[in-house]
């Protein structure tokens, strides 16, 4: 974490002038030229990432998760099971799944939910969709707000900068989790009376909005710092001297130089949101039935931990692996984009 709060002053633009040994310098003897390839800093980062074994493994895990999540309806059609199907005939009189390990069988690969009798694999696969969708949209929203506010504050200086700083401090003083917990049902009450059931999409939008509105601060701080340090560089002066407008300087000159740290924060924000979303669902404030959700599965499983621990194990393990893979990938991404950070 510490290397993120002190973003490297080195930028792709600066790199190009110091240059990397791979870049051809001066005339080379013919025949050896083929061994030297000019590579941009981005290509170098990509190469480093490809060489990283953990990065490859975690990227593969995430790819599988994404394919499974996207292909959930296909899998449902293949097995002929819908996430809402209830196989009550396969539960005993106490509502517990019949058979070994939570009712694992050739029809139900991960068994059945005790009580409701739904297929755990289907719940898991559709829950993965909910989880990934919310995490990615929130991370995108938070980053967009963060970048916009950060660029604005860093570029404008003066009272606007102070205002943004104060706003960041204020947002950081809000107990985010507890606040999210309280705000979501209250806002829902505003838009829906208790007679009508709120649409699942509304709840999801509410969660994404809350996450976005409270998580932009980190990105904003980072971007602001970067903009302040880049603002005084020669290439900005050169662009201005060449008659470039503010929009051009911000979008075409500054932003391309700070995308690397932004990418790293996004990649580390996603696992956090996956965990927080599940935490909210865990106290029954997250996504509502019938939308499948990993956190709510764990919440529902609390009462069955003693009798059917498998019900807790599968969603718990899914969230753990998902978060772990994202964290590892984020770390690897940071290492490859910032060659100086050695651990």
């Amino acid at each position, binding site marked *: *974490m*510490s290397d993120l709060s002190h973003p490297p002053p080195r930028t792709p633009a600066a790199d190009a002038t110091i240059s990397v040994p791979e870049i051809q310098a001066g005339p080379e003897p013919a025949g050896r030229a083929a061994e030297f390839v000019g590579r941009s800093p981005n290509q170098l980062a990509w190469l480093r990432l490809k060489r990283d074994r953990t990065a490859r493994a975690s990227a593969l895990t995430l790819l599988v998760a994404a394919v499974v999540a996207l292909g959930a309806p296909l899998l449902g059609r293949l097995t002929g099971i819908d996430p809402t199907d209830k196989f009550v005939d396969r539960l005993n009189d106490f509502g517990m799944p019949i058979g070994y390990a939570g009712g694992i069988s050739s029809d139900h690969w991960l068994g059945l939910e005790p009580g409701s009798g739904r297929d755990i694999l289907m719940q898991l696969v559709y829950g993965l969709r909910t989880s990934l969708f919310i995490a990615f949209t929130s991370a995108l929203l938070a980053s967009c707000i963060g970048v916009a506010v950060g660029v604005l504050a860093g570029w404008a200086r003066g009272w606007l900068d102070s205002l943004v700083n104060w706003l960041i*401090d*204020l947002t950081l*003083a*809000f*107990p985010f*989790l*507890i*606040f999210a*917990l*309280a*705000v979501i*049902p*209250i*806002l829902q*009450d*505003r838009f829906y*009376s*208790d007679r009508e059931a709120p649409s699942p999409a509304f709840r999801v939008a509410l969660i994404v909005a809350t996450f976005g509105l409270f998580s932009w601060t980190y990105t904003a701080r980072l971007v602001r710092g970067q903009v302040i340090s880049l603002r005084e560089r020669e290439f900005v002066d050169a662009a201005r001297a060449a008659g470039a407008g503010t929009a051009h300087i911000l979008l075409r000159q500054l932003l391309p130089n700070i995308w690397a740290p932004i990418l790293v924060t996004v990649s580390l924000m996603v*696992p956090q949101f996956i*965990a927080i979303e*599940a*935490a909210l669902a*865990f*106290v*029954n*404030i997250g996504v509502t039935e019938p939308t499948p959700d990993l*956190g709510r599965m*764990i*919440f529902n*499983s*609390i009462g069955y*931990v*003693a009798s059917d*621990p498998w019900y*807790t194990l599968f969603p*718990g*393990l899914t*969230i*753990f692996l998902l*978060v*772990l893979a994202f*964290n*590892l990938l984020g770390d690897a991404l940071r290492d490859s984009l910032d060659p100086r950070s050695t*651990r």
Partner: protein
Amino acid sequence: MLRFVVRRLLVAALTLVVISLVTFGLFFAVPSSPAKVMCGKNCTAEDIAQVERRLGIDQPLPRQYADFVGGVFAGRTYGEGDFRQDCPAPCLGYSFRNNQPVTEIVAQRAPVTFSIVLGGAVLWLGLGISLGMVSALRRGTAFDRAAIGVTLAGASMQVYFFGLILLYLLVYSTGLLPFPSYTPLTESPARWAAGLLLPWMTLGFLNSALYARLSRAQMLETLSEDFIRTARAKGLPARQVHTRHALRAAITPIVTIAGLDIGTSLGGTFITETIFGLQGLGKATVEAVQFLNLPVVMATVLLAAVFIVVANIVVDVLYAVIDPRVRLG
């Protein structure tokens, strides 16, 4: 030093005012009818009007806010005649649903959360920092690599999963520990500790993973600095170099994070409390939110914010005490 503290307190007070305004606005202006929400589904229009009158929410919003703030500092009285309810000095509101001043609810719940957090924090700081330090001093050894692996996994583990695993392994299948329960410390320290051991372990193990990673990185950075080389060159014993010189410098950023983590947790460890069925502040918030018990929600959210703001100040002052390089001015 004094000037710094005073300025810091003023900023903190301003932050709290703004947070209370936002929370108040959100919880009392946003719901279509706070009284209806508080009263429940079976209330008639008359009941609602009565609730409104008793709680003073028939007044305009600025007046309501002023009454709330007045209640916090001077106490206030709700209702009249038979329904008169006194709410003494730190009055955080009156819960119609529980028929109880919110301050009383908070006072009942806070010791539970405090016990969970303080016990857990001792475990996670002790375990995390020592693991990180040893790991940094033995960099590259098998121990270090094992520690990196374990802490990496631990940092991605979730309380709601890990807690249930521990519950299954230690309570349900082996019976090594009793199911968590809260006994006040003053009543029986032994039962207090025994009942909270499981939540302490859950929070302690998971958070120590983060702290171990952090302190390992900090320690490695510090060990490569010049003053460590100087200390070694002076002929100081390794033990003294590591603890008195390296650890002291490496611990400063950890204090910041620990302070904020503890402050945030004091506002309610709602997941831990939900798993183990402990009636702490977090559980109170979750329950209040489910029934939209607005006065309780408002009070617990505000309290959580107060803890964060106070933790920030404490951290700033601690900084100057621990790190000789920091001078407050």
